[in-house]
C-alpha cells in the first residue's frame, strides 16, 4: 500500500526534523514547541499503525497536558537562552554526535543485514488491537493490577508535587523580620532558642551566624519589601 508508506515518510521526517530542531535550539521555549511537533507527528504515526486510542491519548496527555506544564514552567522561571558552554565541555558535542552515529550504524546493520535470515513479518490484514474496545478489555481484565497500581502512583505524584510547591512559613516571624548576623536566635529555633535535632533550617542559620561572626561568610543582602518571596 503506497499511501501508508508515503504517510510514514512524511510523518517520520517531521518527527526526526522536529527532534533535531529541539536538540539544536538554544531557547528552551523553541525546544518545547519543537517537541510538540514531535508528539503530533508520533500521533499521526500511531494512526498509520491502526491505533486510534493511543494516538488520541498521546495528543491529550503529552501534547495537551505535559507540554503545557513544561511551557508554563519555562515562562514561570523565565528561562533564557543557553549561555555559551564552558571550554572544558566543548568536547561534548563531537563526542555525543560520534557515539550517536555509531549507535545508528549498529541499528541500521541489525535491521537490514543482521536479520536477513528471518523474513519480515507481514502486516496483519485486520488490526483490531488498536481499537479502544480491545485496549479497554485488556486493561480491565488481564491487566487490572497495573491499572490500579498506576492510580496509587498518580496519588504519590500528587502528594509529591504539593509538598514540593508548599511554602514553608517560619513559625512566629515573617521573613523581613528575620534578624541578620548577631540578632537574637529566635527565627527558626522556636521561642526559647533551643535548636531541636533534625531542624536543619535552624541549624543552618545558627552555623551561618557563627561564620558571619567569624568573618568568613558575607551577611546576606536584604530583599526589598515588594520582592519578598514569603517562603
Amino acid at each position: 500500500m503506497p499511501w501508508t508508506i508515503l504517510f510514514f515518510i512524511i510523518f517520520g521526517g517531521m518527527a526526526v526534523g522536529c527532534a533535531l530542531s529541539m536538540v539544536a535550539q538554544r531557547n528552551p521555549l523553541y525546544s518545547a514547541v519543537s517537541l510538540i511537533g514531535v508528539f503530533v507527528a508520533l500521533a499521526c504515526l500511531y494512526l498509520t499503525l491502526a491505533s486510534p486510542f493511543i494516538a488520541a491519548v498521546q495528543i491529550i496527555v503529552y501534547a495537551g497536558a505535559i507540554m503545557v506544564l513544561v511551557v508554563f514552567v519555562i515562562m514561570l522561571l523565565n528561562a533564557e537562552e543557553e549561555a555559551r558552554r564552558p571550554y572544558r565541555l566543548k568536547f561534548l558535542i563531537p563526542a555525543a554526535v560520534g557515539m550517536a552515529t555509531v549507535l545508528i550504524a549498529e541499528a541500521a546493520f541489525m535491521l537490514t543485514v543482521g536479520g536477513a535470515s528471518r523474513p519480515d513479518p507481514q502486516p496483519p490484514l485486520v488490526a483490531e488491537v488498536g481499537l479502544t474496545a480491545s485496549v479497554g478489555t485488556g486493561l480491565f481484565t488481564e491487566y487490572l493490577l497495573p491499572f490500579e497500581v498506576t492510580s496509587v502512583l498518580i496519588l504519590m505524584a500528587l502528594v509529591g508535587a504539593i509538598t514540593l510547591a508548599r511554602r514553608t512559613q517560619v513559625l512566629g516571624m515573617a521573613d523581613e523580620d528575620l534578624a541578620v548576623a548577631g540578632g537574637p536566635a529566635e527565627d527558626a529555633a522556636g521561642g526559647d532558642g533551643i535548636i531541636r535535632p533534625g531542624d536543619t533550617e535552624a541549624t543552618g542559620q545558627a552555623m551561618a551566624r557563627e561564620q558571619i561572626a567569624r568573618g568568613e561568610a558575607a551577611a546576606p543582602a536584604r530583599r526589598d519589601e515588594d520582592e519578598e518571596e514569603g517562603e
Partner: protein
Amino acid sequence: MAPLNWYLALSAVLFTIGVVGVITKRNVIAMFMCIELMLNAVNLTFVAFSTYFGDVTGQLFVFIVMTVAAAEAAVGLGIIIAIFRNRESLNVDEASVLKLDGRGGGGGRGPTYNPGLSPPAGRRPPFTIYV
C-alpha cells in the same frame, strides 16, 4: 502500513537524538524534554510491535508509560522549581551541590550555611572523609 523495520529504525533514531540532547544540553528543562523524547521513541516501538503481532500488551504498556511520564513530569518540574528557588539558575553545571566544594543555596531568606567553608572549630570530626 510500512514494514516493521522502518518503525524500529525511526524509533532508534529518535531515541538517539534524545540521548544526544541529554548529554549536550545544559538547561535542566531542555534535558527533561529530551528524556520525554526518549520515552516517546520507546512508545513507538511498543505500538509497532503490538500492531504487527496482534498483542494488546504493547498498547497497554504504552498506556502505563504515558501515565508514569505524566507523574514524572509533575514531580520533576516541581523539583526544578524548588532548585530554581534556591539557586536562581537553570544551569545544571551550577547544581553540583552534592560535591564537597559545590556552591550552596543563597537567597533572601536569611543567613545560609556555606558548605564550602571549614567547619566551626571545636566540632571537627576525628577522621577525614574522602569522597
